[in-house]
């Protein structure tokens, strides 16, 4: 374990995104449009824990009563509150270069219930969070005894630390509060002695293009007993499992493959050009983000799970397709529609 590891953990926890909340024009009943509400929002949190302040701010500009469930939208895509904010940002904005501020539209009506889960109150977030935490620990340990063994104070401490992460009290360190409990779920000496109690698997979710995540059981060590690396992980994930069979599959858009340097093998469709994700990434066709950064492929997967996981104990890896801008389904973004075919 390196001397700086704890600093890294704290930096990851402190990661923030500048967000500009603007009210939907449909909801304004006042005669002037309210000015947007700007805020630095933690990556390691959930939107319903943030939007209370946003609601208060905009409630003066609308008569649509604000006990309606508030929801957020980005370029026509409703924001899934139940994913960590940082993951949402990487998935929705990660492919755009040079983005400084995340512009979100705030809605007070027409809740898209086919797409979003309902979130009537803060307890919904807590229940949701704790279930994901259970799921992650079940993957990690094979049981959830560590969670069940928490007493009520510890359990509250964990949730309070996460909740107060957004608006910390000046005398309380939310990091210490949260991690004093969360560390109980992380008992492995990463990179140190092999005698430490190993995890069964590392809870990891792979997300691409705002689609449901892919979740596999990934053992922390490979067959020869060495720590798994990020590239080992990517080599285990079949390419088709990510890009085929979803709603927006790239099969029909083969002409756009010539974006970055003629991907050596495939002149036909991109769909089956790669057998696994490692090939795909190494070919430069896609990149990945974990907590907003792209760690080297030779990083230890166990280490990443330990230091780059979100508060729900899952390691979220966002996959961004850089060849055929099939990005967000509602791509009204003017990305030069026809790439020139210069083969």
């Amino acid at each position, binding site marked *: 374990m390196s001397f700086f590891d704890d600093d890294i953990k704290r930096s990851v926890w402190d990661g923030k995104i500048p967000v500009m909340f603007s009210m939907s024009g449909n909801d304004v009943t006042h005669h002037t449009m309210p000015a947007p509400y700007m805020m630095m929002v933690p990556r390691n949190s959930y939107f319903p824990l943030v939007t209370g302040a946003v609601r208060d701010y905009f409630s003066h500009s609308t008569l649509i009563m604000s006990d309606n469930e508030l929801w957020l939208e980005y370029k026509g895509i409703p924001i899934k509150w139940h994913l960590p904010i940082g993951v949402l940002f990487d998935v929705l904005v990660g492919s755009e270069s040079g983005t400084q501020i995340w512009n979100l539209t705030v809605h007070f009506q027409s809740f898209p219930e086919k797409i979003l*889960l309902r979130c009537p109150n803060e307890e919904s977030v807590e229940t*949701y969070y704790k*279930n*994901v935490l259970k*799921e992650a620990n*079940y993957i990690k340990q094979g049981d959830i005894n560590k969670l069940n063994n928490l007493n009520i104070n510890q359990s509250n401490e964990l949730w309070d630390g996460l909740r107060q992460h957004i608006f910390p009290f000046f005398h309380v360190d939310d990091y210490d509060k949260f991690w004093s409990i969360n560390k109980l779920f992380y008992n492995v000496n990463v990179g140190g002695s092999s005698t430490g109690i190993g995890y069964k698997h590392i809870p990891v979710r792979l997300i691409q293009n705002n689609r*449901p995540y892919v*979740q*596999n059981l990934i053992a922390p060590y490979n067959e020869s007993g060495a720590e798994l690396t990020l590239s080992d992980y990517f080599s285990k994930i079949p390419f088709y499992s990510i890009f085929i*069979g979803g709603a927006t599959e790239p099969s029909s858009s083969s002409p756009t493959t010539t974006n970055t340097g003629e991907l050596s093998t495939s002149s036909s469709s991109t769909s089956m050009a790669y057998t696994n994700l490692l090939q795909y990434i190494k070919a430069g066709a896609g990149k990945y983000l974990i907590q907003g950064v792209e760690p080297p492929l030779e990083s230890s997967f166990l280490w990443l799970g330990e230091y780059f996981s979100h508060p729900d104990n899952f390691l979220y890896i966002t996959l961004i397709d850089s060849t055929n801008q099939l990005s967000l389904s509602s791509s009204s973004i003017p990305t030069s529609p026809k790439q020139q075919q210069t083969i």
Partner: protein
Amino acid sequence: MEDSNNNNNNNSSNTTTTTTNTNIEQPSSPPTNTSSDTNINTPSSSSSTTEPTKRDSIIIYFKNAGSAPALKQKKFKLQATLSFQHVIDNLRKQLKMKPNEPLFCFVNQVFQPSPDECLSELFKCFSHNDQLVVNYSNAPAWG
């Protein structure tokens, strides 16, 4: 239901609850529950597909807990691409529940999956003996 073994020998505890329902439901025809997206499969066929890479459908085994009634037909085959929401909806339909009646669904008596979680992903991580066990209850039994 206390036993977490996946042997199918827990019918004895279920029969008591099912009998209360049978007078209301259809007569003693073989269980032909017809719903749009579920095909009932016989338990014997469950172990026939063992190809690990790609599967089109998965088997869900429902176990009741608390005072929730048991299902006559406990195993269902669902498309692997569906979300867990379909499991919940389906179960509610089978149990003929009203929209305001509470229902809690757990995987392996451990956690409640997110409704938008894909069944194939749950199956990959949490299935035993080629089936995904979903425990349901009308109270948060393992909360």
